[in-house]
């Protein structure tokens, strides 16, 4: 059990490239913290620095109050689970899990006891004498976990441990990892590029981009109060809709029509000293089929009518896709998010919006639909630097 403190930790490669810059995080004892971000954001480098597999260029790393920058990985008492699992192919499952204990010269009886206990927890008992090559992906993953937990280290580091599993198994293993961490209560740093994993697993989430920490907070806080356009777009699935808008006289001119600002938002925007050209962000679930709402509810939001391009029925909800005529929102952050998700869909004829409607909605593909949205939930961003103009702190 340990508290891990990253104090202005920076990684600069010999060629001058800055991989991680001034990371300041205090990870509490027993906390489950997630580092998330697109590839190349510095999350794995940060993890490797905590592990001791990469040197820290500047700043200090403290575990339980002691500076460990110069300590070799083996002297940090930290276990790590790798994306490829890194199981030793020439050793059986039992030998793999016993390996850290053997290196620590633990006596045989204890080794056997601990390995068997870990195998029981992870449901690997009947596979102990097999080689990793004969195991399924999920079993290998569990062996990797077993090798980490067997010596009761101060902390676990996990580098995308689930990304090599298929979708269904990943969801299952996600739950097991969370349960295991709760049960052991060991400080855990977990790296992923998958925002769903980040949202579901962590006590707190650290969003990184280009070597910089964007925001640290609970999943809910990141979702509701992103500090900037990048976090807003990265967290949430399907992701937030962004539209260009003009701010004038307490009113917002959007491609969906004029939207009056609520008092709460107006105050925040004024305090933030907002420019007149802004980007408005709306999450899919803040839309609804206007026909399903009563008069009172309808009045508390904006409405627009558009043709449904595509309708996806999920059973519990319906996702309706619309094209909104006019300019599209542009900013460096949005470009990066688009590149990350691989969407090259650069529509010339307007912005795509995704809305999540109740299953009861009568929306049909190709037909017009009147859609309502919650004006009080909208977020405004400064296109020049991406900051959230409606951030309440």
């Amino acid at each position: 059990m340990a508290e891990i403190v990253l104090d202005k930790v920076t990684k600069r490669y010999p060629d001058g490239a800055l991989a991680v810059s001034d990371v300041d995080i205090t990870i509490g004892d027993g906390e489950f913290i997630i580092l998330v971000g697109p590839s190349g954001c510095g999350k794995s480098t940060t993890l490797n620095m905590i592990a001791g597999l990469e040197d820290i260029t500047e700043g200090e790393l403290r575990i339980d109050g002691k500076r460990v920058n110069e300590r070799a990985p083996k002297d940090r008492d930290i276990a790590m689970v790798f994306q490829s699992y890194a199981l030793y192919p020439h050793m059986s499952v039992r030998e793999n899990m016993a390996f850290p204990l053997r290196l620590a010269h633990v006596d045989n009886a204890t080794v056997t006891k601990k390995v068997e206990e870990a195998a029981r927890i992870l449901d690997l008992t009947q596979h102990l004498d097999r080689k990793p090559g004969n195991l399924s992906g999920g079993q290998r993953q569990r062996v990797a976990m077993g090798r980490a937990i067997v010596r009761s280290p101060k902390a676990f580091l996990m580098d995308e441990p689930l990304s090599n599993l298929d979708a269904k198994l990943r969801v299952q293993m996600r739950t097991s990892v969370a349960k295991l961490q709760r049960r052991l209560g060991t400080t855990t740093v977990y790296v992923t590029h998958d925002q769903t994993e980040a949202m579901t697993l962590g006590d707190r989430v650290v969003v990184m981009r280009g070597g910089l920490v964007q925001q640290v907070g609970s999943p809910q806080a990141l979702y509701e109060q992103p500090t900037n356009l990048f976090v807003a777009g990265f967290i949430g699935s399907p992701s937030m809709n962004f539209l260009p808008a003009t701010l004038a006289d307490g009113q917002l001119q959007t491609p969906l029509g004029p939207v009056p600002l609520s008092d709460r938002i107006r105050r925040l925007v004024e305090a933030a000293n907002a420019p007149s050209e802004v980007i408005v962000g709306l999450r899919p679930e803040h839309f609804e089929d206007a026909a399903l709402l009563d008069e009172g509810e309808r009045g508390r939001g904006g409405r627009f009518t558009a043709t449904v391009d595509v309708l996806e029925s999920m059973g519990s909800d319906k996702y309706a896709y619309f094209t909104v005529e006019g300019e599209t929102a542009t900013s460096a952050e949005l470009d990066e998010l688009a590149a990350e998700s691989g969407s090259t869909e650069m529509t010339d004829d307007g912005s795509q919006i995704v809305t999540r409607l109740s299953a009861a909605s009568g929306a049909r593909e190709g037909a017009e639909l009147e859609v309502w949205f919650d004006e009080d939930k909208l977020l405004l961003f400064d296109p020049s630097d991406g900051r959230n103009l409606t951030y309440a702190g």
Partner: protein
Amino acid sequence: MSQTAERTADTPVSPPAKKAVSEGKKAERKLGLWLCAPAALVMIAVTGYPIIYSIWLSLQRYDLRFPDQQKFVGLENYVTVLSNSYWWTAFGVTAMITVISVAIELVLGMGLALVMHRTLVMRGLVRTVALIPYGIVTVVAAFSWRYAWTQDTGYLAQLFAPDSALLTQRVPALAIIILAEVWKTVPFMALLLMAGLALVPDDLLKAASMDGASAWQRFTKVMVPVMKPAILVALLFRTLDAFRIFDNIFVLTSGAQETGSVSMQTYNNLIKGLNLGIGSTMSVLIFIAVAVIAFIFIKVFGTSAPGSDDGRKR
């Protein structure tokens, strides 16, 4: 371009970028160099220096039987060799053996590769047995072929030409040399091609047959193009190897009846003639010929040299 240049010039370079490589990097470089040094030294000592020495020798009159007459003669040795009909005969024989045997090897090797890759029964056995010609000592195989074709006493001679001494006639002797060469090297060719075959995804062949390609079309339109890099590497290896043919000829005919290769000529000049000047000249000429072949393969056909950059990026 100019814009980029300007920007880099204006941007102040951050100090760490200018700083010499870090300690870890330095240690890595040093270790790398130390680890490679012994191998590199041996290779330079046994090939680099001798090549230069050989060029120098080729410019000398230097006959070990008359060591007193050693002197610098410029390109005279080259004129002697290149105006000598024996050299050109040997060169022609070598080129012919190379072209014919490599062509046959490619066809048979491809067939064997397909058999080893696709056979439904006894795959392990076929792969094991096919390795025997590769592994066997060339001289041993050559003796086997010689005794097989010896008049009256060989089983093949009795079978095909009971009344003539084939190894003493030029054309049949050359054919036997090619046979011996082909037998020995088809498995190696096949192994290289099989590695290429493994790179052809099964789905691709299934897709091609869904698209209506016949077996032959699948082979020529899908397999061969995908395997092209492997085929070219195999051809390059074998061509250069065939060009230095020596063992088979030495045992089968000793180069009689104008069946000698350029390697035979060089050996004869050196060991039998003890003429270092002429021998070195031939060495240099063979080296040039091989370099030209390699150059043609790499530049014209775009053969990628194995172990080069793209090999590491995988």
